[in-house]
């Protein structure tokens, strides 16, 4: 009903306007066209001048009103190193164009008013003026030259890629319908190879797991960066065009399927510092939209957006961006897990089961040293034995498997660093074989390990070995997992004397 009333009102309004127009035309014929024209010319002249004044006042005052949203001013200052170049170029362009804007508008409307048709005044015959025309060709040309030089100077500095000896970190941001996924390079600082054909549910970047640079890559749902450190963002797209847009950092670059693009920038303000900056402005001292307990500025975040139409969800591709102090960042990074190691390693999709990754070697070494230290500190009465989890043998023999040497090397290093420690190697089996055979096998295996350590340069006096056969299971022999746990080599560590090396059968 209200719609109907609105329509009726509009129709009525139009009707009234049309009638006024008709009446004015009639009046013109009645009162004499000349007189009416003269009056209306005068009025229109006034209107034009009035419009000019109102227009210039309103544009200028609205610029002042919205100053906090424009240019490199106040809360809208850039948070990146190169951003200030853009902002100052923008300010320069603003000043120049605004002056031209005001000047030409005053001339345009003032001349229109001043040279309106008036009785007794004739138009002057001025067809051209070469001097004037040279001036208004030359002056813009000179101004443009300055803007071009200034602009290109800044542009080439901003868009120049990283130099050969720059230190920087590289991350990848990939756009897809309709979100961003972020990949960090991990400890090696290098992003692994990808191929879009490898993309699937468990491999969203299409990473090629045979490229070991991928092994430590981290997948993230947000961007976290250290302040004052150069970042090179590799920008990719999975399906259609997207655009990696960080408004507060003056970063924008299309993401193109099949063509990785890059943007290099250095954040200069941590999220905390930025929020503190916002707190000084009234429009941020309102309740936060996400947490009514807090102020707007307290919960404000840098944001990543998409700035290239990519489909119906284009407007929703938001990711939080956080800038931290260097130490906070390191702390945060330490908590992030490699996607490959936590989701792919050891599953069916893992093409690297025949090898040990550097990260795994390091990790196992750390675990071993920690367990060994713990075992050393444990009192003699308790069990100060640790299991050499990764030392394994070929089935039914004392032949060490290929990967066993890593942990044994760790043990050698450990013993070299702790010269006062003596060890006893204990072999155990599961219950699948005959008890005697098991005993012999476990003894041979313990001896084999002792031999390995001996060759590694550990004094024979510090080591003994013993086989326990199937006598000491630590898990249920009824399951495969349990049996595997029972087949083990243990390392008994002590700073005191070794026990006699003749265990009971």
């Amino acid at each position, binding site marked *: 009903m209200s719609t109907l009333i609105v329509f009726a009102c509009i129709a009525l309004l139009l009707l009234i306007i049309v009638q006024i127009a008709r009446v004015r035309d009639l009046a013109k014929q009645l009162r004499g066209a000349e007189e009416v024209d003269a009056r209306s010319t005068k009025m229109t002249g006034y209107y034009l001048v009035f419009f000019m004044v109102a227009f210039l006042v309103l544009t200028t005052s609205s610029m002042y009103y919205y100053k906090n949203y424009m240019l490199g001013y106040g809360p809208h200052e850039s948070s990146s190193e190169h951003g200030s170049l853009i902002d100052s170029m923008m300010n320069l362009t603003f000043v120049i164009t605004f002056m031209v804007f005001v000047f030409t508008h005053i001339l345009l409307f003032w001349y229109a008013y001043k040279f309106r048709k008036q009785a007794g005044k004739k138009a002057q015959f001025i067809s051209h003026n070469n001097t004037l025309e040279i001036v208004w060709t030359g002056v813009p040309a000179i101004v443009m030259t300055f803007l071009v030089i200034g602009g290109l100077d800044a542009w080439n500095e*901003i868009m120049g890629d990283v130099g050969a000896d720059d230190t920087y970190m590289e991350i990848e941001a990939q756009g897809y319908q309709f979100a961003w996924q972020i990949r960090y390079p991990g400890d090696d600082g290098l992003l692994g190879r990808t191929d879009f054909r490898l993309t699937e549910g468990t491999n969203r970047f299409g990473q090629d797991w045979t490229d070991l640079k991928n092994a430590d890559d981290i997948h993230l749902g947000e961007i976290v960066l250290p302040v004052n450190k150069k970042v090179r963002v590799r920008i990719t797209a999975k399906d259609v065009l997207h655009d990696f847009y960080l408004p507060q950092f003056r970063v924008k670059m299309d993401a*193109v399927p099949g063509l990785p693009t890059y943007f290099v920038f250095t954040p200069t303000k941590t999220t905390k510092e930025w929020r503190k900056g916002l707190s000084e402005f009234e429009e941020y001292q309102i309740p936060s939209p996400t947490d009514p307990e807090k102020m707007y500025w307290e919960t404000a975040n840098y944001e990543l957006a998409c700035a290239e139409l990519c489909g119906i969800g284009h407007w929703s591709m938001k990711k939080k961006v956080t800038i931290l102090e260097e130490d906070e960042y390191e702390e945060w990074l330490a908590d992030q897990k490699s996607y490959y190691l936590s989701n792919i390693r050891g599953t069916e999709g893992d093409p690297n089961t025949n090898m040990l990754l550097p990260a795994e070697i390091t990790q196992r070494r750390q675990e071993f040293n920690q367990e060994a230290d713990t075992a050393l500190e444990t009192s003699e009465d308790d069990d100060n034995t640790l299991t050499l989890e990764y030392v394994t043998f070929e089935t039914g023999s004392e032949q060490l498997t290929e990967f066993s040497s890593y942990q044994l090397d760790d043990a050698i290093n450990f013993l070299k660093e702790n010269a006062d420690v003596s060890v006893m190697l204990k072999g155990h089996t599961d219950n699948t074989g005959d008890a005697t055979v098991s005993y012999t096998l476990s003894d041979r295996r313990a001896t084999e390990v002792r031999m390995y350590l001996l060759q590694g340069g550990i004094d024979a006096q510090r080591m003994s070995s013993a086989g326990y056969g199937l006598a000491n299971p630590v898990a249920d022999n009824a399951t495969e997992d349990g049996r595997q746990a029972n087949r083990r080599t243990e390392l008994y560590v002590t700073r005191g004397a070794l026990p006699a090396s003749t265990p009971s059968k």
Partner: protein
Amino acid sequence: MATAIFAPTTREEGLIQELGYEDYFHDHHHGDKYQSNFVSHYIFSQDHKMIAKQFLITGMMWAIIGGLMSLVFRMQLGFPEESLAWIKPVLGKWITVSADGIGKLQADFYYALVTMHGTILVFFVLTAGLSGTFSNLLIPLMVGARDMASPLLNMLSYWFFFISGMVMFASLFLSTGPFAGGWVAYPPLSALPEAMDGSKAGMTLWTISLVLFVVSVLLGGINYITTVLNLRTKGMTMWRLPLPIWAFFVTAIIGLLSFPVLVSAFFLMMLDRGIGTSFYLSDIYIGGQALDHVGGSPILYQHLFWFLGHPEVYIIILPAMGIVSEVLSVNARKPIFGYKAMVFSILAIAFLSFIVWAHHMFMSGVNPFIANFFVIFTLIIAVPSAVKVFNWIATLYGGSIRFNPASLFAIGFVSMFISGGLTGIWLGNSTLDIQLHDTYFVVAHFHIVMGVAAFFGMYAGVYHWFPKMYGRFMNETLGKFHFWGTLIGAYCVFWPMHYIGMAGVPRRYFRFDTFETFNHFAELNKFITIAAIITFGFQVLFIINFFYSIWKGRKMETMNPYDSNTLEWTTPIETGHGNWPGKLPSVQRWAYDYGKDGRDFIPQVEPVSEEESPAH
């Protein structure tokens, strides 16, 4: 014989009979063939004046459709919580009404509306409606020709435009909706039906429609160029051409050189869509599977598209500039200031328009190095543009300006062109483009400089030449209402977008509240939407005025109501086929002898007398 019967009624007609050129046109019965019955007169007309009216009215219909579309998506942007259930009868399934009766615009349809609005306004309204109308109407009349070089091609040009429009209109009713990937139709979004519903049949129809449209533009363009080059009447040298003709001529050349490139871009797109080639596609994983396309580049399309796309904005604005130059000069009763500079600046702009296309692509992933060239050429365009602006202002200086809707819209055009042109200096600078690219700042810029400004040029032309088209005047008071409403309204709509853009808000967002950064402008967006509705309302005044005046407007009683120099005002009020009832006029001077030697105006057909001061 027809020529013998014709008796001159005015001094100009007398001069034409005395000095004109006898081409024996009226000895043959061309006229009957062209306008003997309703169909050949009003529908399949080959008369350039009728074709001009067909272009104009078709363009107006499209402008209404495109304008209404913008109001619907402005409602979404300004009042996202408001129920739109009341337009469900029109928009059907694109509005979903929830259980409590709140009608919401679907995101797919929002994008379809934005895309259709852009396509319709750029191609159907501001290319066909503006250049098509006035090139057709004015070229033969102003150069002194009986008609276009090929009336048949001219007729086909309109009908290809009409069919193109019908195809586009049909796409609005597809179940998967019209194309929705933006008027630039960047692949892969436009090339892959999986990417969005609009890229299914909607995209196919969109492409077909635009290919037909290009055919129309090319048929028209060849005609305009040939007519200007070959059918100028005796004495009408190139340097005596009125400025609109220069503008239409150069526009047609630009169109002829750039539109075929667009077709080739579409052709490759069709191959990618239809038979699995990979011109634009590579490394794509979409809808749960990796596609076979490898080796193409989406950026290739962007190069091809903008090779048309940038000249296209000059195809839109140059005719408006030409019209404004003429209207300002006639109504200021002064010669256009710096006629030659005006011509050379048109030529310079046209030339430069072909070597600046990549300024649309600074952030698209092309090598940043190439920006060095494109920034330089782009900012050079500011120079001829500045020359034009200063020349228009200088044309007003010392004049005796008549304020009628046409001259007011011409002044408004200059204001819009300044406001929008200056922001071009921001955007043409690649450094600023890093922040401003694809934000509302761009929306503000191009709407003011080529949308609103071109509309102003078009309105100036319609108000000025309406009597030539229909033998009646449009209502001046309504015209002035229309002018003030549009001037103020358009600034209210587009000026605030600069602020939104500088704050970084991207364009083509369905809603802004997902982002904290972009969610500061709810009030301003409401204001813009209200301003847009009101401004559209003022365009309704124009439409009423237009159709009312066709039948009821004040009658034109003299042949030359504006005391104008150009040839179109030497034709009879009821201009028949062949334009001049007797001989063809012979041109004796340039078009801008206003106020010379104390005489208000000296028509082009009047010989230069001995005592006259030297030519301009």
